């Protein structure tokens, strides 16, 4: 017995320890690995080129205009007796990695809880909605992209205000299912997040209607091409967002699953 233990004891103990470590990594959503990855990839993070700088300047200009208009809008709403909370500042983050398996559509970004990123925050990029934060470590966070099949986004047609939700297909095309039986929608209509979406703030651009499949049962569907070039994004913006209370438990459950 003792000889057997002398021969096999160490490997058994080590294997046990490694399994426990692996289980810990799994339960922590691979936080340790994301952290190491963020640290290692820091020197390789891309510098902004002149062209991007100019584009960014243009975006900044437009953003300022939007903020100005929003301010005016808010003041008008205040005059009209409408109360809305102040927006929180945005965080810009580089994309440092893609999902560790191609069945999932996630990205790893180089900002974490130390920079003020929280679970549930909304991520946007050049062109519109990108996804939301599902996991945060001190220096990195994981984003579930709207192209992921597990992602659901409440959305509406800007022109007719008809409501539905968007499901990812693992590509640049997503499917929008409508709640109405006969929705008013045409090819080329723009789609934004809807005001009843519990996970996203209203009015963020998503994409344009590409093809109609209204006779699809159980709900009419349309294919939407995302305006954000998800595969080429290098930088994203994180917007603080508190998911609405009603389904917070559901979100937590979903995060545990995904």
């Amino acid at each position, binding site marked *: 017995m003792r000889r057997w233990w002398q021969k096999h004891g160490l490997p058994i103990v*080590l*294997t046990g320890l*490694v*399994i426990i470590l*692996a*289980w810990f*990594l*799994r*339960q*922590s*959503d*691979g936080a340790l*690995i*994301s952290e*190491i*990855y963020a640290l*290692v*990839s820091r020197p390789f993070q891309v510098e902004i080129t002149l062209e991007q700088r100019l584009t960014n300047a243009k975006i900044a200009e437009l953003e300022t205009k939007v903020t100005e208009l929003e301010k005016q809008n808010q003041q008008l709403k205040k005059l009209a007796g409408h109360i809305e909370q102040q927006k929180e500042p945005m965080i810009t983050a580089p994309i*440092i*990695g*893609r*999902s*560790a*398996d*191609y*069945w*999932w559509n*996630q990205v*790893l970004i180089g900002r974490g809880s130390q920079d003020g990123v929280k679970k549930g925050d909304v991520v946007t990029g050049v062109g519109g909605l990108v996804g939301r934060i599902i996991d945060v470590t001190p220096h990195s966070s994981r984003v579930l992209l709207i192209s992921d*099949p*597990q992602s659901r986004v409440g959305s509406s047609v800007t022109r007719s205000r008809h409501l539905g939700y968007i499901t990812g*297909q*693992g590509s640049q095309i997503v499917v929008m299912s409508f709640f109405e039986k006969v929705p008013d929608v045409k090819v080329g209509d723009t789609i934004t997040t809807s005001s009843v979406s519990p996970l996203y703030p209203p009015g963020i651009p998503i994409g344009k209607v590409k093809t109609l499949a209204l006779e699809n049962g159980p709900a009419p569907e349309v294919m939407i091409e995302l305006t954000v070039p998800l*595969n080429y994004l290098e930088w994203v913006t994180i917007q603080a967002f508190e998911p609405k209370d009603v389904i917070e438990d559901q979100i937590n459950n979903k995060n545990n*699953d*995904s």
Partner: protein
Amino acid sequence: MRKYSNIRQIFNYLIIFISVLLCLLLLPARLPGMELLGIHPNWLLIWVVAWSVKRTSFEGAIAGLILGLIQDGMTGADPTHIFGLMLVGIITSQLQKEKYIKEDFISISLIVFGMVFLTETITAIQYMLQGLRSVGNIWFHFQKVALASAILSSLWAPVLYYPLNIWWSKLDKFKKGSFRYD
């Protein structure tokens, strides 16, 4: 002699740890030349194959379990990677390499090619059982992923297999040699 064998053993654990960590860090990275249709080599699978080739099914299964758990943490646990990687470990160790396959780069690449198809099929089946995605969508995605990943993984497999195999065969020789002195 005993002292040296202990040092070698510790060195071996270190090599295992570093090679696994390297594979894990390569997963989220998209380096030029390692990407095809946005798909990258399945480094963990290559590692499990390299590990299991000269080991028992049990050791292969344990390696698959551990790496599967870690990959679940890095992506999502539903569907899980554990089944696929464990099966890869078991089957690779069961292959009768002396009879049919020589232990060279090409046979390792071939094993990896087959194993990628196996794991992707298992993932696809899990998705179908889950019922969240339409079958057409899963099938379309499966074809793209399985083929691109199998090609890339089998091409990159020797990069990982070659150094690990050299080290492990050396270690084996030392072990066999040291029994005489013990």
